[in-house]
């Protein structure tokens, strides 16, 4: 192989690999990331047909769990589902009509206010926005 051809082959190969890395980066950027939830201040928590009145669901809100509560009148409330006692995840207990912590039996009412057990403070409340059929939950604007 002549020197000129050799350089051409190497140059073409180098350009091909470079182009490949550029295209791979673009594809990786266009494909959705594995983490469905980012640490953004707003997440889609549910759809409007998902929850019956007087029921709730836990969703991931950043690195914390969130609790979306559908009230008996059809309205929604959302909280950071982290107990203010020892940071266990709280859940809605339809039978008791309260938000309940399994770790030490802490109880919060449907407004997130601590009403029984060791929790010293109310739950942090989140804002609920309904856009079309989607329910978004976001950190309150301070």
């Amino acid at each position, binding site marked *: 192989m002549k020197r000129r051809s050799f350089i051409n082959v190497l140059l073409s190969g180098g350009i091909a690999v470079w182009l490949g890395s550029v295209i791979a980066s673009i594809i990786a950027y266009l494909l959705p*990331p594995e983490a469905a939830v980012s640490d953004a201040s707003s997440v889609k928590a549910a759809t409007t047909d998902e929850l019956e009145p007087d029921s709730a669901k836990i969703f*991931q809100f950043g690195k914390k769990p969130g609790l979306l509560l559908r009230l008996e009148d059809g309205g929604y409330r959302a909280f950071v589902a982290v107990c203010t006692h020892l940071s266990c995840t709280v859940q809605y207990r339809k039978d008791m009509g309260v938000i309940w912590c399994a770790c030490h039996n802490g109880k919060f009412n449907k407004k997130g206010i601590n009403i029984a057990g060791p929790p010293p403070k109310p739950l942090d409340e989140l804002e609920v926005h309904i856009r079309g059929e989607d329910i978004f939950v976001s950190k309150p604007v301070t």
Partner: protein
Amino acid sequence: MRCIKYLSKPLNLALLVVAAVCLVTVAIGNLSAQEELKKEESTCINCHAELEDELLEPVTRFRHDIHYEKGIACDGCHGGDSSAEDADESMDPDKGFIGVPDPLEIPSFCGKCHSSSTYMGKFNPALPVDQEKKYRTSLHGKRNAEGDRKVAQCASCHGIHGIRPAGDPLSKVHPLNVPEMCATCHSDPGYMKSYELPTDQYRKYAEGVHGVALLQNKETGAPACNDCHGNHGAVPPGVASIAFVCGNCHVNNMRLFNESPLKAAFSELHLPGCETCHNYHDIPKPTDAVVGVGPESVCRDCHTETKRPAGYRVAKEIRKHLDTLAERTRSADSVVVEASQRGMDVLDAEYRLKDVRQALIEARTMVHSFDAGMVKDKVDAGLEAAKEAVRLGEKAIANYYFRRKWLGFSTLILSFLVLMLIFKIREVDRRTGR
């Protein structure tokens, strides 16, 4: 004559009349204000305001008193007639004046109004009216009824004249102030000597987990003295009722203990449910070290390899499970922290870590079942979550190294390209003879 001459001029006369009217108006205004002041402040306050020391103190304090704010004058409690202008008349025993009440009479003195739902309903229908009744059942109340003037009565805790509602942070009975208020008597060795009671409760409480939460962290949800002993009906909780007292807040622990085989064993030995392991007043923040058979274990107080060995084995096994999950929690945590410090997105891993920590808390609560199998179930759930958290953390770290390697590789490729371009340019230059 000169004066008459002066007043004969119409303008001067008019000016004089206007001045006189102004003076009379001001004088009447002052008189009305003084009367209003007297009416508002009463003879008692007006006189005592001019006195000194302990005779002045009631006036200074009373202005911040809830009774004063509600419009109850001195005679509302002390009798007499606050509106009488003469001091002797206002303090006339014939008008019901009782002066400073005897400590033995204070409960019924306050109870006159506070035990009447009709009367109290006018001011605050939500206020309980059973304080005196409860007080009579307390040790304080019983001693008071027996003629003990030193023992606590209403004024000892609520104060005198400067009485504020319990919700007021400046009140002596506000949750944050209750321990110090009780300690006024109960930490005074001289005062408590005749009762043969210890005086280290406050010190112990302040060092304990509840005292630190309330007094240092200002968590008003943490219990003060009255939350365990009662307030108006204050009594030391008996052996049988300790678990109920603690169980008011620690519901799961009480339920698990009551369902455990140790409930019957403790009853047989007349041991109180909670304080046998956790103490009272100086309740330490519990750690895993108190479980098991190690040097700090409380299980060893009753169980050794030869004495009640079944409990010894259970304690050892429970501790092993707790240690396994605690160790796995720490390692999962360190993996996720490492990934986070390398700038990787670890939201999912941190979310799983929460499950691990919760499982550890629940496993520690489950210790009160004294059932190694139940503890293991919680620990297994935690280990599963820890495994997932570690997987996500390690994946994030692997991704970090992957990115670094490919950055190095692409830099090499780019450098190679630049080199090849230089060769190509030289070759083209040579060919064209430049």
